């Protein structure tokens, strides 16, 4: 048997406690009239301990499951970081493509002797180069 329970074994244990709690409650309901106050108190305390322990075991199993997947979580974060870097590079490439488009537009304005277009085109190119 392993030294430490794995998350699935912990869940099985918690489920057993839950079932045990149900059986005791069934017994309490059926035998309520025959039980004295001290017995009722004892049953209540037992049920409380069982319920608290089972509830905590379910929550603890998350910690164990998380520990088992921690390495993979770090790997996926590294993958996400790689995508993020690529996204930044792609945005820079897009900025260059935008500059090419603007320069072409400026050339068009120059050829057509469109003074307003030339001014706008120059502003646009300066702004884009400045952003880089």
């Amino acid at each position: 048997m392993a030294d430490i329970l794995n998350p699935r074994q912990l869940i099985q244990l918690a489920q057993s406690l839950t079932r045990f709690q149900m059986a005791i409650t069934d017994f309490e309901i059926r035998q309520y009239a025959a039980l004295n106050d001290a017995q009722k108190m004892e049953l209540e305390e037992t049920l409380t301990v069982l319920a608290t322990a089972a509830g905590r075991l379910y929550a603890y199993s998350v910690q164990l499951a998380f520990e088992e997947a921690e390495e993979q979580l770090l790997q996926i974060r590294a993958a996400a970081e790689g995508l993020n870097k690529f996204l930044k590079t792609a945005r820079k490439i897009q900025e260059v493509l935008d500059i090419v488009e603007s320069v072409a537009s400026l050339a068009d304005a120059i050829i057509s002797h469109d003074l307003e277009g030339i001014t706008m085109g120059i502003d646009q190119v300066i702004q884009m180069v400045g952003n880089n």
Partner: protein
Amino acid sequence: MKKLLFASMVFLGSCKSTDMINRFAKSAANATAEIGSATFHFEDLYKLYNPETLKYYSSDTLALRPSPLKPQKDVMGPAGPISEKEFLLPRSNEYKKADSLVEIINQTLVNYFSLLESVSDKKLLAYNARDLIQALSGIQQNEISGFSLSEEKINAVKGILNTILNEPIKWYRYKTLIRTMQKADSVISRIIFTYSFILDTALTGEIEQAKQNYYSFGYAPIYNHAQNSVEKFYVNQLYDQVDLSLLNEKIKMHKSVLALQTIRKGHSQLAFGKQDSDFKETEAMIARDIILVNGLISEIIQLIK
């Protein structure tokens, strides 16, 4: 030779669209975020169904019939009096920790799929040769009389330029995305397995425990004190309502797990180049699961109202 190179470029580009990756990533990011916000948390269950809270409320219900189990409002702790709130919610740290770990898993997946969506967005990298072609026609009209291009030819040049500049970028991006997805596929699979285990086993177990707690500390004490069949009927009716709302939570949890399995399958199919029809099925399944989860939430809201 040039024609062949161009044709192969167009062919590669048209085959390797990132559209499907984008649609999948968008659905997966939305579904995962939905699962994170719509499913019950450990602490929610603990606050509502821990034994002390239930004992307190059941003994309050039985106020006219004093019970020896009713907790006192002013409880003395080792460091002085404990407030009523502290008394009702003793030691919820393990539940908070479980929730924060689940949140880390959920956010890691949402972040990965959101980035996948951003990188595969076709608007991210696109070149439009419209301005360049306009400049070319300007040259044709104003400067070089011998440089004559028909409208048809201008459009053809525009298409060629767009293709030549866009397709290699598309191809490069597609390769990067596929490489990342292939590398991450087994890891995604493992994380989704862990997330599914938590939802379908640990959280569902906690819901079952909540139901049991209500049975032991809410239902049983009141039922045991019920003096006639009308009172017993009322107590049973209350129990059925709690049972139904917790059952809905369990169904929601199970549906969330199915959605996660669909996402895992879809990621794998896209990473290793399976057929489109398979992905369409995956996409439809994700959509169906989101609708189901939303439907369940609406039902629960109706029940609360």
